[in-house]
């Protein structure tokens, strides 16, 4: 752990010296990467042993990457999809939920919103409630995995904000979905 912190500190100091050179990475990203490097690397370690598929830790991809935005990191995946009339988290999404729960556990200041959505069929108000149930389902799983209750707010858009405006099974499947957002996004 201390070794990784040491590397992160050197990286931070080194990059600070380069502030006059325009880079594609803003200083804010560097700082969060520095802070996240400790967590990310710890995550990578535990991720590696449990095989949850976490790859490309902050250390591995360079000290500029935010794991939440890194396309090689499961944390950049933010959507959980549901079956019709269901709010059960299917097995294929467990690794994703686990990764985000772990991130919250290791970053106690991080705040997340889970937005629940439904397909277009049925009562608008009942769908607000159904979308909420989907968001709560993922929250509950994350809390069991160590995330703090106060770190997660769950809200529902019901059927009001479909991502797919179509009226077929494919569109409905895409709209039965939770989206995970972190504060500031």
């Amino acid at each position, binding site marked *: 752990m201390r070794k990784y912190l040491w590397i992160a500190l050197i990286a931070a100091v080194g990059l600070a010296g380069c502030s006059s050179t325009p880079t594609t990475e803003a200083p804010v990203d560097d700082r969060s990467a520095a802070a996240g490097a400790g967590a990310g690397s710890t995550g990578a370690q535990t991720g590696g042993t449990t095989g949850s598929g976490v790859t490309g830790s902050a250390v591995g991809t360079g000290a500029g990457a935010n794991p939440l935005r890194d396309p090689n990191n499961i944390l950049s995946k933010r959507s959980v999809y549901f079956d019709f009339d269901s709010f059960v988290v299917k097995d294929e999404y467990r690794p994703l939920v686990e990764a985000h729960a772990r991130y919250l556990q290791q970053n106690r200041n991080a705040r997340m*919103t889970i937005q629940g959505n439904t397909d277009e*069929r*049925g*009562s608008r108000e009942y769908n*607000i*409630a159904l979308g909420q149930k989907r968001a709560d389902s993922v929250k509950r799983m994350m809390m069991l995995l160590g995330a703090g209750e106060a770190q997660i*707010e769950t*809200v*529902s*858009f019901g059927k009001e904000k479909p991502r797919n405006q179509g009226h077929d099974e494919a569109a409905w499947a895409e709209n039965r979905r939770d989206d995970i957002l972190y504060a500031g996004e």
Partner: protein
Amino acid sequence: MIPLLRRWFAFGLLALSSLGVPLAHAQLSIEIVGGAGAQIPIAIVPFGNEGTWPLGISGVVGADLQRSGMFRLVNTDGVVPRPVRAEEVQGPLWRSRNADAVVVGSMTPMADGKVDVRFALVDVVKQSTLVAMSFVVTQQQFRVTAHKIADIIYEKLTGDRGVFSTRIAYITRQGTRYQLLVADADGNDPQTVVSSGEPLLSPRWSPDGTRLAYVSLENRKPVVYVQSLETGTRRAVANFRGSNSSPAWSPDGRRLAVTLTKDGGSQVYLMNADGGNPTRVLTSSGIDTEAMFTPDGQSLVFTSDRGGTPQIYRANLLSGQVERLTFDGSYNVSPRPLPDGKGMVFVRRDGGRFQVATLDYATRQVQVLTAGPGDESPSVAPNGKMVIYASEGGGRGILAAVSIDGRVKQRLVAPAVDVREPAWGPFPRS
């Protein structure tokens, strides 16, 4: 009948073009697609002098009565001289045209600029004058006066109170622009109450017609607002952690039932309509939502999945007793109590089709009023005789209306926008 209808549509179009109402203002046009079984044939004779002013009062009266589906307008052409008072109505002439009732009237300008509008309703079968009334009004009040006359005629001949003087609220979507509008029951004079880049839903009239509660997603989560129609100012009355939705007014207008998720899960609370601390009134481990007060204020009907599937229940607020009301099918939602307290309108899913239906509490009979497949959000007129609801047509959201017995059908469409979430306003205070 046909000339009168053409005149009304033409006037409507003229009004649109002369006022330059943009399409985005979503003027609703209303068409009858089904009439009552036995329509009352009525002749509405153009009022004496009414051609002096641009708004033909008798035309608005006739359009209201025809749109109700309860009346068939009888041709009034070629009656010379034109009768303007009850005494001038020749029974045999009108009976030969198969009219049961005749409406005559006159408009007389007065010295102070106001106008004396008088009308009479004559039963040409019994040969008696049923109503004779006069109003002194300004020109700006002509439309309101016409609706009032239509209400009086309607009540006299059907026994039910007319709703021609009421207003409807509805929501439109054009791209990502959402608007909450209020218009006259005939679609006239739409006014934008809220305009937003995020969805709006669940508009609900306060019992006195002065405020609207609604749900807005502008804060990236559902929040319940109450807005004054007079001043346009609004307050977020329910903005707790999680989702806040499904507002419903108590009959005295002092409280709202709302669905909140702040304590985990969608549950029903009561709160002061001005905001403040909510009180939990129902408890279940699943979803409770869509609570509506019964007209006596003593119970809530609501949707719950406590039995495994979404069904409608009634909870007595005093005793706390809860009973289930719907038993057919696996999806019964959106309860809307009827004003007489004897039943409710609701939405059911049958074989994948969402339909509007009624339930009689005493007989437990369900009557399906619409065909679907995507009918939702019904709202009952304050006389309990018509139900407006959201439907689909021509590839977009439209409104439709159906009489409580299922016979009269209307479509309400606006060009180029999705219309949804109708709410029928209360009788105006007079």
